[in-house]
């Protein structure tokens, strides 16, 4: 059962990672029109970098076989793509030519990203349910 707990640990790491992705997408959507960030420049789109990472090193040490491949958030990076420009001379942040620099956020892209993350979250939740059932069956041996 030791390795089954490492399978759950892998799924749990994915739940965390997918939640971070959803949070990033929500933050991007919320700031799609923010022309002033903390440093005075428009908001930059945030992207989450995921990285595979083995979980359950203890199981491997005691000969539990292949470690489960978990996932971790390697970092949140800012998208360096150029800002969008919109002609709006009345805006206080407009430049001399009357253009406003808007965040490099594509709302459709964020929605698709959010859907993908939500589906992945659901899939990992199903995985945890399945593993839990297996553990339950293993415990029934003692009855």
């Amino acid at each position: 059962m030791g390795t089954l707990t490492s399978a759950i640990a892998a799924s749990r790491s994915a739940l965390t990672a997918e939640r971070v992705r959803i949070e990033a997408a929500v933050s991007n959507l919320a700031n799609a029109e923010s022309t002033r960030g903390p440093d005075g420049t428009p908001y930059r789109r945030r992207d989450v970098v995921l990285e595979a990472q083995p979980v359950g090193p203890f199981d491997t040490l005691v000969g539990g076989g292949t470690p489960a491949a978990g996932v971790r958030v390697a970092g949140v990076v800012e998208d360096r793509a150029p800002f969008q420009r919109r002609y709006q001379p009345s805006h206080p942040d407009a430049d001399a030519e009357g253009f406003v620099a808007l965040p490099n956020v594509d709302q459709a892209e964020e929605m698709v990203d959010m859907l993908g993350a939500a589906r992945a979250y659901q899939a990992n939740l199903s995985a945890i349910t399945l593993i839990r059932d297996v553990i339950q069956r293993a415990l029934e041996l003692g009855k």
Partner: protein
Amino acid sequence: MSIAVARQVIAAGNLANLDTPGFRAQELAFDKALDSRVGGLQLASTSAGHLPAAPGPQAVAARDAGGSPRRDGNTVQLDRELLTMTEAAGDFAKAQTALAAKFRLVRYALSEGR
């Protein structure tokens, strides 16, 4: 049961990395797993000069499951992994039923048929 668990663990790892760029889906190398089970059989040594057979591999190996990568180089297929997990859970339940029946027999014998 151990093999069902190993498949479960590998599929869970694949699912966890559903969105990791460049991640290659893994699968249980069934032939290797089988070898590690029957590898425990020893050749009969009828003469003192016989060398013992090499021990079989102990750890269950995972290998690249293949499949064409998506644009981000990831080869995990959601449906495939969930199917593997369901299948492995079923296999585990089958093995558990058989083992539980065996235990019941032992208990029956221990209680002298009462």
